[in-house]
Structure formats: structure tokens, C-alpha cells
């Protein structure tokens, strides 16, 4: 029978090519001056870890430390060029605040399209459609193009579709960054339900408070490498998110923000 690992990342590496010069003219000039035509950048550098089914993991790190790239590798949008990433079961979730929506399509059409991309059948989508629409609280905007939505509205819609997919792994990337307070609380509650249902949860956040609430393990990325992997409190300490006057203040507001009443 199948094992219990949910996500196995084995020495995964992802390199991005940075282009200095893109046009023929620029490239010729650069070559004549013996400048570099391109440079590479390792967003994820030899990362290894295993997440068991049902674990709830907080993925933390500073901006640009490779969190979103790692999530893209896990979700299958990108493939590592070194090492491997393997997952078990259906994956749903949000990458970098907001799902892939088509700006010209209405919210309603995007729900169907998005659900289909996440692997839901037509019948399944129809059955869950009302729940999805209710949760997103779009009201009359459901039938206007997503391109006209505010960022909060489109991320609400994205979260709503993703959360209603019957997935085995749920990836949440800064979902709470754009929502307003009532919606944040609703999201956290939903994510707790997901976690308590035994699904694997990977949660990216800078809010130490909500990570502490949601997760039982923290992985900290530093410039593409795993800097820390283990206990939540220690992980937050490792990141120094719990010290320093300024961050302390931030943390407290975050904490009070992120639902003491959940």
C-alpha cells in the first residue's frame, strides 16, 4: 500500500535566468563590450524535506527567500531542474495572492475554469458552486469580469475556489495579505477545518501569530536554502520575528488582527 508521505522534496534546485539584454541590438552591444548577456539566480537551492500526510507546515522566510518558488515546485507549475519534488494526491491552493484568473471572464466563468484546472468535474463544481460563491461574498459582481475586481475580491474568489476543492494538500501563500479582517478570520477558520480534517497544509505567512496557531512545524528558507526545520516557536525565534521593538509591535498588531476570537 501507499506510504504516508505527502510531499517529498529531494535536493530540489530551481534556477532562474536573469536577462540583462533582450533585443538583438542590446545583445550585440553587450557582447562587443564583453558584458554578461545573462546571469542566473538560484531561487531554490538544494532543498530537501519530507512532509507527512496531515502535517501542517508553516513556510517562512524573508521576501525573496524562495517561498513562492518552492510552492510552485510543489504545486507543479514549475519543475525543479535538479533533484525532485513528489506529491501524493490532489493539490489545491493559492500562489502569491490570487489564483490564475482570466481577466475577461466573469467571476462565474472563472469559478468553473479554475475548478476544472484544479481537477474538479462539472458535476462537482455545480454541486459546490453556491458554497463557493457564498464564501467569496461577491454578490452582484459574480457576473462581471474578474479584471474589474479589486485585489481583495479576486483573492477572495481564488481562495474560495481552492478551499472548496476536495484536495489532499492545501497550499496557502500569503492568503491573508489582502483580505479584510472578517475575511481573514473566515479564511483562518476554513484552514483550521482543513488541517483538522487531516489534509496536509503548507502555509506561507509573515504573521508569526497565525503560523503559531495553524502549524505544528516551521520551515524557514534563507536565500533558497533551508535555514531551519522544526518546532514552530523555535522557528519564529530563528527568524527573529519575536524580538526587536519594531517587529514586536508588528507582531502584536498582527496577532490581534489575526483572530484572537477564532
Amino acid at each position: 500500500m501507499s506510504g504516508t508521505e505527502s510531499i517529498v522534496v529531494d535536493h530540489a534546485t530551481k534556477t532562474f535566468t536573469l536577462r540583462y539584454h533582450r533585443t538583438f541590438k542590446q545583445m550585440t552591444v553587450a557582447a562587443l563590450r564583453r558584458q554578461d548577456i545573462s546571469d542566473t539566480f538560484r531561487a531554490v537551492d538544494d532543498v530537501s524535506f519530507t512532509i507527512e500526510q496531515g502535517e501542517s507546515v508553516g513556510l517562512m522566510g524573508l521576501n525573496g527567500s524562495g517561498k513562492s518558488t518552492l510552492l510552485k515546485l510543489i504545486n507543479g507549475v514549475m519543475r525543479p531542474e535538479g533533484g525532485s519534488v513528489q506529491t501524493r494526491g490532489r493539490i489545491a491552493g493559492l500562489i502569491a495572492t490570487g489564483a490564475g484568473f482570466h481577466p475577461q471572464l466573469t467571476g462565474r466563468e472563472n469559478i468553473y475554469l479554475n475548478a476544472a484546472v484544479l481537477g474538479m468535474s462539472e458535476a462537482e463544481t455545480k454541486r459546490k458552486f453556491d458554497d463557493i460563491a457564498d464564501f467569496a461574498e461577491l454578490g452582484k459582481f459574480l457576473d462581471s469580469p474578474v479584471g474589474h475586481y479589486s485585489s481583495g475580491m479576486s483573492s477572495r474568489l481564488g481562495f474560495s475556489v481552492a478551499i472548496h476543492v476536495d484536495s489532499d494538500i492545501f497550499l496557502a501563500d500569503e492568503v491573508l495579505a489582502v483580505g479584510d479582517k472578517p475575511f481573514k478570520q473566515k479564511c483562518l477558520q476554513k484552514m483550521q477545518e482543513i488541517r483538522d480534517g487531516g489534509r496536509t497544509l503548507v502555509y506561507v505567512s509573515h504573521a508569526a501569530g497565525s503560523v503559531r496557531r495553524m502549524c505544528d512545524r516551521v520551515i524557514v528558507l534563507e536565500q533558497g536554502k533551508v535555514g531551519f526545520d522544526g518546532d514552530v516557536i523555535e522557528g519564529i525565534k530563528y527568524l527573529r520575528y519575536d524580538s526587536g521593538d519594531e517587529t514586536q509591535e508588528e507582531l502584536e498588531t498582527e496577532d490581534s488582527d489575526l483572530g484572537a476570537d477564532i
Partner: protein
Amino acid sequence: MTDVTEPEVDTSPRPLRTVDAPLASPAATAGLLEVFRRRYLLRLLVRREISARYQGSFLGLLWSYINPLSQFFIYYVVMGVLFGLHKDVENFAIHMFCGIIIVHFFNETFNAGTRSIVRNKALVQKMAMPREMFPVASMLVSGYHVVPQLVIMMIVCVLLGWMPTLAGVVALVTALVIIATVGTAMALLFSAANVFFRDVGNVAAILTNFVRFGVPMIYPYTMVEDKFGQFAQFYLFNPIADAVLLFQKAFWVGTTDHPAATEAAHLPANLWAFSGLAVVVGVILLVIGQMVFSRLENKIPERL
């Protein structure tokens, strides 16, 4: 040092969820096969594309007829009336319309397919799905537009005394298969390349011009044979030219007064052999297109 209250972490054991699926790479790898496995998603994308192509335009879907019809009239006046070709070629309008349908199908597939991945970047960057979906959807959308043109063609042909034949139906289907495979293959190749250099879109636009004049549409095949003799064979290595000839066999030949004589005079004798070859070429191109696409695909999301 911190006065943050310890969170009341829920320590009660959670229900164990056993997932029956094997551990596998989350990135879809089966390419075109995966596209046809996820037909529901493909259908949604095709429907989306059809509605999006004419969004905000007053005439909407009618544009897909106005465009070929305008071409039809330009060519008819210039080639037919001005150059006097419609005296030499019986039912020159039908002869030309056969070409226009095929060329339009191919060019639409090729052009829209080339732009398909860049245009859908919102989806490509964030959702894991086989990206071959987009070029294939472009081909199907273009194919969808062929149907009403075929209906118009058939009505006109029936009015001219045309009767469907078995060979004609086989020719029709073969022609559509050739264009669908070659068109999808080219769309696959160019859509991936277009992500890296947007110049590719311009190259595609130029190639479609060659296609327009590289098939026996505004001139009969006999002209090619007269001019090039032996070398006319090479002309037939062009799968799109074969598809046009097959369409003419299916429709145009049957509308003339002496179909057998027309066929003998204006169509190459070994058309079936070349058509078979064209199908094989289409499949080979499709395999090559898929291979190149798979290689480039890894870099697509970051380059968009």
C-alpha cells in the same frame, strides 16, 4: 521577553487521512495525451476562447465569415476577373473557396496558437495544467469556425448539381486531419518559442502569407504542373497544398460538367499517395512539436 500569549495549540490528534494515490511528480508530463484525458477542461477553454475572441465586438462571430468572404471577393476580382482565370477554370469561385477554407483553418490555428500561451499567461503562471492545452484549444476553435463555412460550401455545391461521394468524404476528412495535425504541431512549436522571443509571432504572420500563395487556391494546380513539369512533385510535398487539393476533389470536381475529365486534367494523379504522406508528415511534426514543447516548457512560467 515576549509578552505574546502562548497560542492554545490544538494538541488533540487529528483524524488520519489516507491518500491512495502514489507519490508522483505534481507537474503534468504526459503532454498531448494528458490534454485529451482532461476533456472537460479543454471544452471550457475552447468555449472561453470562442467567446473571448469576439468579446466587445458588435458583429462578434460574424467576423469569422467576413474575413474569409472579403478575401474571397478580393481574389475573385483580381485573379478571376482581372487575370481572367475564371474563364480557364470551371467554377473558379468554388475552386478558390476550397482553398480559402483550408488556408483560413490553418492560418487561424497557427496564428492564434502561436499567441495562445502568452495570451493565457495568467493561467500558465499560477496553475498546474498541461500547457499543450492552449495550442490545442486554438486549433479546435479554428476548427469550430470551419463548420459553417463547410455548410455554405455544401449548399452552393448542391445548387450546382454536386452529389456527395464516398471518395469525396474520405478526401474531406483526410484534408481536415492533415490541417489539424500540421496546424497543432506548428502551433505547439511556435507558442513555446513565442514565450522566449516575441519575434516569433511576427515570423508566424509572415509564414501565413506564404501559405496563402503556396497552395493551389487562386491558381489551378495545372499551372504549377505546366510551369515546373517534373518539379511539380515538390510542390505536393507541402501538406497544406495536398489538403487544398483534397478539398477540391471533395467539392469542386463534383460541381463541374464532366467531373472525371476535370479530375484527370486538374488534380495530380498520385494525390492519394501524397495525402497519405502528408498525414504521416503531420504526425511526425506533431511528435517533434511535442518534444520541443516539453523541453521548453520548464522555462515557460518564469519567462512570461
